[in-house]
């Protein structure tokens, strides 16, 4: 079918050609050109139709350097609301508790390992809690990360109650005077209400030790995900009151533009990005770099 062939050839040069045409389009007065090219760039970056429309509307009629305006607008979306204050990553309790949630395969366990290593390198005493009691060998996987990061791990056997693992881990973290407890959880799809209830239970159980727990709950989002990210952010936020996002796998060709769509609907700042499988491949989120990559 010629249709396939055309498309395949077209895709190869897609992005290279796009950016230069976008740069040309923002220079021109022709709003129609600008709209079309910009829409294409944004949608192919997974920004989504609605968020793309809003971004385009906000700059289309304005005076000035529109390339600048475009970047400013996107930075405003990323840095507004709860993202206005720079993230200090400071530990607010002893122990400070971080709860990681997300869909299957988004990278929670890897992120838990990287976070543990990051704080351990600062001389903090870190404990990992193996809250994924469902998936085969998830506990072993976290244990390997704990070893790499040289931190303790608390686990029960596979199939045990995740909330009880979390509770026991917090009890131990308090008793041992740990600085940070990171609770890994099983992957779950956000439309499975029973599994989301299980997550809410983990949160409730942690609160039995004190209202302040968990200090931070992060949704781990795979950068290759498209518009479903919005549903993920909304439903996980409903279930466990998220504090922010961690976007993983940004070292591929996916741009992670769906976080712009997410940020327009739910006020959740991005805190970290995952850029590789190594233990150091977790970076603080830099909005400027992100916007550059998205428009590049």
């Amino acid at each position: 079918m010629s249709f396939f062939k055309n498309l395949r050839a077209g895709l190869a040069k897609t992005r290279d050609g796009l950016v230069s045409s976008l740069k040309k389009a923002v220079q021109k007065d022709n709003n129609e050109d600008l709209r079309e090219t910009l829409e294409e760039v944004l949608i192919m970056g997974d920004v989504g139709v609605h968020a793309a429309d809003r971004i385009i509307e906000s700059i289309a009629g304005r005076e000035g350097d529109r390339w600048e305006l475009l970047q400013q607008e996107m930075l405003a979306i990323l840095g507004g609301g709860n993202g206005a204050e720079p993230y200090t990553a400071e530990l607010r309790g002893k122990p400070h508790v971080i709860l990681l949630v997300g869909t299957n395969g988004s990278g929670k366990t890897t992120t838990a390992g990287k976070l543990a290593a990051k704080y351990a390198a600062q001389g903090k005493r870190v404990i990992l809690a193996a809250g994924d009691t469902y998936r085969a060998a998830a506990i072993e996987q976290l244990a390997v990360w704990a070893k790499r990061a040289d931190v303790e791990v608390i686990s029960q056997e596979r199939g045990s109650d995740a909330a009880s693992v979390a509770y026991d881990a917090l009890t131990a973290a308090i008793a041992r005077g740990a600085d940070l407890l990171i609770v890994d959880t099983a992957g779950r799809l956000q439309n499975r209400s029973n599994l989301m209830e299980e997550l809410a239970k983990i949160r409730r159980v942690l609160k039995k030790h004190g209202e302040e727990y968990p200090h931070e709950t992060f949704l781990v989002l795979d950068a290759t995900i498209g518009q479903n990210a919005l549903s993920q952010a909304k439903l996980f936020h409903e279930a466990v009151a998220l504090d922010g996002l961690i976007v993983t796998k940004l070292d591929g060709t996916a741009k992670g533009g769906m976080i712009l769509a997410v940020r327009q609907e739910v006020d959740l700042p991005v805190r970290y990005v995952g850029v590789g499988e190594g233990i150091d491949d977790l970076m603080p989120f830099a909005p400027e770099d992100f916007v550059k990559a998205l428009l590049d």
Partner: protein
Amino acid sequence: MFEEISSKLDAAFKKLRGRGKLNEKDVTAGLREIRLALLEADVHFKVVKEFLANVKERAVGQEVLDSISPGQQLVKIVNDELVKLLGGQRAPIRLASQPPTVVLLAGLQGSGKTTFAAKLAQRYIKRDKRVHLVAGDIYRPAAADQLEQLAKQIGASITRGEEGELPDSIAARAIKKAAGDLQDLVIVDTAGRLHVDEDLMKEIERVHAVAKPDETLLVVDGMTGQDAVNVATSFQERIAIDGFVLTKMDGDARGGAALSIRHVTGKPIKFVGTGEGVDALEDFHPDRMANRILGMGDVVGLVEKAAQSVDMEKAAHLADRMRRQQFTLDDFADQLSQLKKMGPLDQIMGMIPGAAKMPKGMKVDDKAMGRTEAIISSMTPLERSEPVILNGSRRKRIARGSGTSVQEVNQLLKQFDMIKKMMKKMGGKRGKKGRMTPRFQ
């Protein structure tokens, strides 16, 4: 079944009521909604563009059938084209003439390769085949442990790598061993890799060269966005992909990646992963996928699920009672228990068109159903067939017996009343033709 999109389209088409044919301008206006639906489903931008150009060509000049509106007509054309492009017929695994058949799995990190390996193995073990799994992921911590635990669970044998052994060597060793052991199927799991990681892409080329798979499947997360085409084409350039597996389709993603991938590679989607259990694997159905991408729900899947779990005799009996308006609380409880057999309610609701848009209070949950069952079970047989006798003290007793409140008992009786009223209406309309399928609230 086309409600959502076609109602929007009908609004766009208001002006052309009574017209006989779709003209270019009408179609262009109508395709806007379709475009939005496709993009929201994560179909690739370019694919959408070209697809709609094709549809437009086909749609212009088509007669609007008497029975349906222009909106529905256009949706039908789009739907037909989608189904065609998603792949006409089923594409099963090609079995080797000389066993064992070797299947190689590849994909990005976290796409679901290891879980799929176990599901595919389980499917063939159930058909009395001997299946051998190969743990080719030497990078992710405990990946081999995961596959080993799954292998044990489903009764497959497994080869793991020695310390420092590379994936191509593990695969070669496993396949040789499997042939000697008279295995029917060898499934080679590999590490997740980014399509831009040159070293790892070379590695999978080597594994592919050594394993000489009869079937190479790329495992893709059903939630993948616009990048799906980059991933699929990059892998296809390096190893000859025979087909795709779409995972995590029990979620609420519309799965537009399926269309993109199918378009750019021309290779079929073979399987769909629909849950975490080793049984949750389905063949790919282009028609259902088309409906899902357009946001129209999986009515066929729902009916099929019902057919699997509903006792037909009971259903016929129930329909009969409904028709004669003898529907009692007992029947109601019966219906609930049949509904429960179909699986978790939220999964079922996801298959109903428009259900995602239902207001929160309308959503049924498994717990509420349990309470309803408890209330009905706490009634005497007489109360169940003659709910009118339920006075205050009876209601109090039932609430106590079922661990609920009188308000909840009242609410249930009210609901039941409403259902009966609805049935009266439907019974009247349908007359004697009314062969009703079991319904639920």
